[in-house]
């Protein structure tokens, strides 16, 4: 069925309001966007790694989750939800339950790229019928903006501070979507919030309803960590896509497909400039750092175009 923005937005929310996430946070936007792709009549068990999302949505005795929900620890959302899915298979086989369930795990980039990486890789390799969604805000925001392997190079974080002899993080970010692509699971996609959420919705729908393991990497900006005005969430996502810092693509049954080709690829400055964490790059004499950043974005973008058969 064709995507209908108004209809989707009028669906009852499965993550209730009143949770404690910051104004302008990309996390709950990602969660709601993904859960909207569930058919309203379908049941789900949602898992979550420790992080902002977990501590803000399920503080005893209140839960914002209308579906069954499990938080275990920081590094094991993949393994935990794989256990839930295994229980479902066994109990269904034995006739102990009758309903159909979907299984979705959420983790930030800390719980996904770093500490939870092994658990995620194991769950994907074993092929559990589940979706793992990373809401990637590019640092350990919950503990106070420390670097992760998803943090872009040169970002000023509390463990890679820019200083008189430092220009911020020294390493480029890990390309986790492609690493999970290397697991050759049925579906991997990279997305974020652009235009009318069509890209996020369609990818979520495929990920949820495709049999087997699926992975979604959703860029979910954090106004506190990136230091931009909180009302600019959609603008930041758009700039990430239009500069090709965060290309939108999917790998479905081994076929790589670019989801969006910018009409005119914007220079990376457009994405970096509004963010306080890159402020030091715009000091006189640091022009070469922006040039280096641009070269890395271009190299990765070109590689992706080749993989997607666009070049």
């Amino acid at each position: 069925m064709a995507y209908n923005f108004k209809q989707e937005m009028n669906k009852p929310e499965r993550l209730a309001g009143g949770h404690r996430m910051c104004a302008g946070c990309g996390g709950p936007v990602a969660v709601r966007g993904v859960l909207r792709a569930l058919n309203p009549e379908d049941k789900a068990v949602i898992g979550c790694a420790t992080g902002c999302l977990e501590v803000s949505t399920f503080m005893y005795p209140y839960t914002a989750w209308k579906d069954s929900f499990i938080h275990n620890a920081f590094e094991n959302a993949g393994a935990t939800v794989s256990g839930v899915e295994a229980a479902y298979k066994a109990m269904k086989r034995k006739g102990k339950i009758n309903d159909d369930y979907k299984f979705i795990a959420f983790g930030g980039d800390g719980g996904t790229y770093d500490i939870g990486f092994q658990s995620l890789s194991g769950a994907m390799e074993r092929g559990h019928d589940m979706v793992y969604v990373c809401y990637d805000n590019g640092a350990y925001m919950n503990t106070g903006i420390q670097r992760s392997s998803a943090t872009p190079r040169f970002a000023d974080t509390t463990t890679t501070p820019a200083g008189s002899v430092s220009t911020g993080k020294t390493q480029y970010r890990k390309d986790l979507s492609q690493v999970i692509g290397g697991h050759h699971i049925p579906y991997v996609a990279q997305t974020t919030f652009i235009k009318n959420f069509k890209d996020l919705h369609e990818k979520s729908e495929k990920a949820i309803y495709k049999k087997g393991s699926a992975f979604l990497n959703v860029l979910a900006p954090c106004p506190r960590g990136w230091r931009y005005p909180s009302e600019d969430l959609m603008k930041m996502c758009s700039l990430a896509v239009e500069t090709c810092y965060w290309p939108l693509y999917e790998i479905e049954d081994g076929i790589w497909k670019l989801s969006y080709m910018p009409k005119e690829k914007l220079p990376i400055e457009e994405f970096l400039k509004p963010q306080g964490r890159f402020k030091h790059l715009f000091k006189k004499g640091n022009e070469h750092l922006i040039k280096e950043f641009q070269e890395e974005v271009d190299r990765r973008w070109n590689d992706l175009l080749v993989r997607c058969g666009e070049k």
Partner: protein
Amino acid sequence: MAIRERLSGNEAVATAMRQINPDVVAAFPITPSTEVPQYFSTYVANGLVDTEFVPVESEHSAMSACVGSEAAGARTMTATSSCGLALMWEELFIAASCRLPITLALVNRALSGPININADHSDSMGARDTGWIQIYSENNQEAYDNFIQAVRIGEHKDVRLPVMVCQDGFITSHAVENIELIEDDKVKEFVGEYYPQNFLLNSKQPMSVGPYDTPTYYMEHKRLQAEGMIKAKKVILEISEQFEKLTGRKYGLFETYKLDDADSALVIINSTAGTAKDAVDRLRAEGKKVGLLKIRVFRPFPAEEIAEALENTKSIAVMDKAEGFNSQGGPLCSEIKSALYNIENAPKIINYIYGLGGRDVKVDNIIEVYNELEKINKTGDIGNKYRYLSVRD
């Protein structure tokens, strides 16, 4: 009719798992418990069980998957040893605090480092305060019997805690001995079906598990968890009684051997109790009043009952197959000392660290310990309270 067999401790536990036919088993191989998931995989491969077997990529994920599975409403089991249990560390606490009655077959092995694959109790003793019920087994028969009872104990509504059933690596896990098995249908009838009160896959009542718990409620939750452990003692005894009716095999919180009139007693855990019983028999034949107490249930710790059983002895050697590294001795000794603290004219207590990393313990070594106790009884001089058995100085 019970079935007479010859099985290793690992195969005995795997057989119990087959007979129970749990919903989910998630496990990762580690010597010497590897055989348990191996045997179990063959049962799955040959359709003897309809369990979902999850061959995870680490023990941390094994226990994480067990937590997910048990919370979902499935009867769930795993097996591990040594560093595997250590890697589960964080998850052991989470499983217990979420009140998830997972059953774990622990084949005791020394912790690294240096790396060593043989038996001692450093793994389970390190996990003694994680909130798990711990039941220990002298031989393959006890490992089998304890494992079947563990399911009922953990799942009991007054308890709802995970249970680890421990046996000594290689010494009993790999040694093939005679065993009496219960018929499959009788095991199934004994353990029954698992119907948890609340579970994730209950379509009538969705639930959230694993909250962020602030100081406003955290302490009440810990108090409730402690209550489960306190109540477990009674439940363990009730289930032993039912088990005795089924099999004729009687289990208490601990076993006493020729202890009633003993002047000198050993307190010991797992397989070395068998060796020690031989030593007791030999010394009894010489007219010496010696006996032993073998711990079966270490968590909950049956302190009052132990104190009552030991109060008339003159001296006790507590045998620890794990170092405590507190400069005072091993963990079992601390527990026994505190259990006897309020007894008037309490017996003298010495502690032996023995068998670390699989160091062999023979009947003569145990006789040496009893001789030391006899010396204390005669002279009244306790001497060194913190000793090592069979170690090069």
